[in-house]
């Protein structure tokens, strides 16, 4: 899968000849044990389907309630937007926008770009944008905090369950499954693999 003559480890800069990696195997740096690449049994289609499923689930998440709160007949409920954007009206605008980016905008953009990238590889349309798409994907990746938000929901649920009756809406379950799809996409994304696809497409 390597088209390069030599590769270097990102964590210790050891220069090496590209390893022969078989499917299901993982190559690690002999000096610092940094994971260099991993070739999965799955293929590009599986990645495409997980990314597309994630996007659909994220859309479903915006359509229903995330949580309901019932304190002696006083009921309030929120959806995904409100959970981030309500702080906006309390004059914490920057924080509200940041939260919305971390839990929704960035994961959505990442999945969208992955789908667009794979479709562009398959059809050959928009070759010129492929490198910028990949660069964007890898820049955004560390900032999407899907799993952290899921834990945040659970913590606030437990926090409130002692004082009020709590309910979880469909959005929560959709988000939980979305979280699984997103995690699966993350494990399938491999830098060397992605750039190798570009090299092949441009050859």
């Amino acid at each position, binding site marked *: 899968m390597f088209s*390069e*003559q*030599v*590769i*270097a*480890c*990102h*964590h*210790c*800069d*050891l*220069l090496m000849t590209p390893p022969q990696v078989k499917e299901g195997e993982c190559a690690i740096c002999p*000096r*610092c*044990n*940094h994971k260099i690449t991993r070739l999965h049994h799955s293929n590009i289609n599986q990645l495409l389907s997980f990314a597309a499923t994630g996007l659909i689930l994220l859309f479903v998440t915006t359509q229903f309630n995330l*949580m309901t*709160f019932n*304190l002696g007949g*006083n009921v*309030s*409920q*929120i959806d995904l937007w*409100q*959970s*981030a*954007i*309500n*702080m906006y009206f*309390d004059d*914490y605008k*920057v*924080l*509200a926008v*940041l*939260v919305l980016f*971390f*839990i929704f905008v960035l994961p959505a953009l990442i999945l969208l770009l992955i789908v667009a990238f794979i479709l562009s590889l398959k059809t050959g349309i928009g070759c010129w944008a492929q*490198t910028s798409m*990949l*660069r964007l994907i*890898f820049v955004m990746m*560390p900032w999407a*905090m899907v799993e*952290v*938000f899921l*834990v*945040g*929901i659970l*913590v*606030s649920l*437990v*926090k*409130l369950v*002692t004082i009020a009756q709590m309910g979880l809406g469909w959005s929560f379950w959709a988000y939980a499954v979305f979280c699984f799809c997103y995690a699966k996409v993350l494990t399938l994304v491999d*830098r*060397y693999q992605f*750039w190798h696809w*570009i*090299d092949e497409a441009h050859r």
Partner: protein
Amino acid sequence: MNDYCRQSAASQQLANCSSCSLVSPIELGQCPRCQTQLHLRKPLSLQLTMAYLITALLLYIPANLWPMMVTEKLGQVEYNTIIGGIIVLWQDGSEPIAIVVFVASVLVPIIKFIILFMLCFSVYFSGLLCPAKRLKLYRLTELIGRWSMVDIFVVAILVALIQLEQLLNVQPGSGTVAFAGVVILTMIAAKSFDPRVLWDDFDRKCDH
């Protein structure tokens, strides 16, 4: 004697592209595959890391002193700091959640501060641990960095959910902005640190 560690790409004047991992000569200036600027090492990595860390450390003071959440219960206003919120959780009998919040919003930032400061200083003064062990610590900071955001998300959810006028309502406190700043700045600090410097420094000392 070489400025860069043994068998490294940099000692051959080869740069590893930070975006696409293509190894190419540094003279090119730009990566031939993805047009990213090429550097042998991240420029100003130690200075930037230290600058972000010190800013984060300063922000960490108001993050702990200012309230994270302002709760209004039947006209009574209550201010909760990070530590205060954890104590309330513990007293309410939800010890496991108190521990989760404690780890995410107190332990993780402190561990990140200690490790990153230690890594920066270990380059200036001779190393405390071998590079492989220091690298493990660096990977730990990268792994745990984002989890401190849990507290911010909890505040966001509670603020949105609990709006029962006079009966009970929750507003975000000014501490949230400072704390979010701490989390984001320490994440940027970890990103601007270049772990390859650890190996350069180690091999330079061994050569002497």
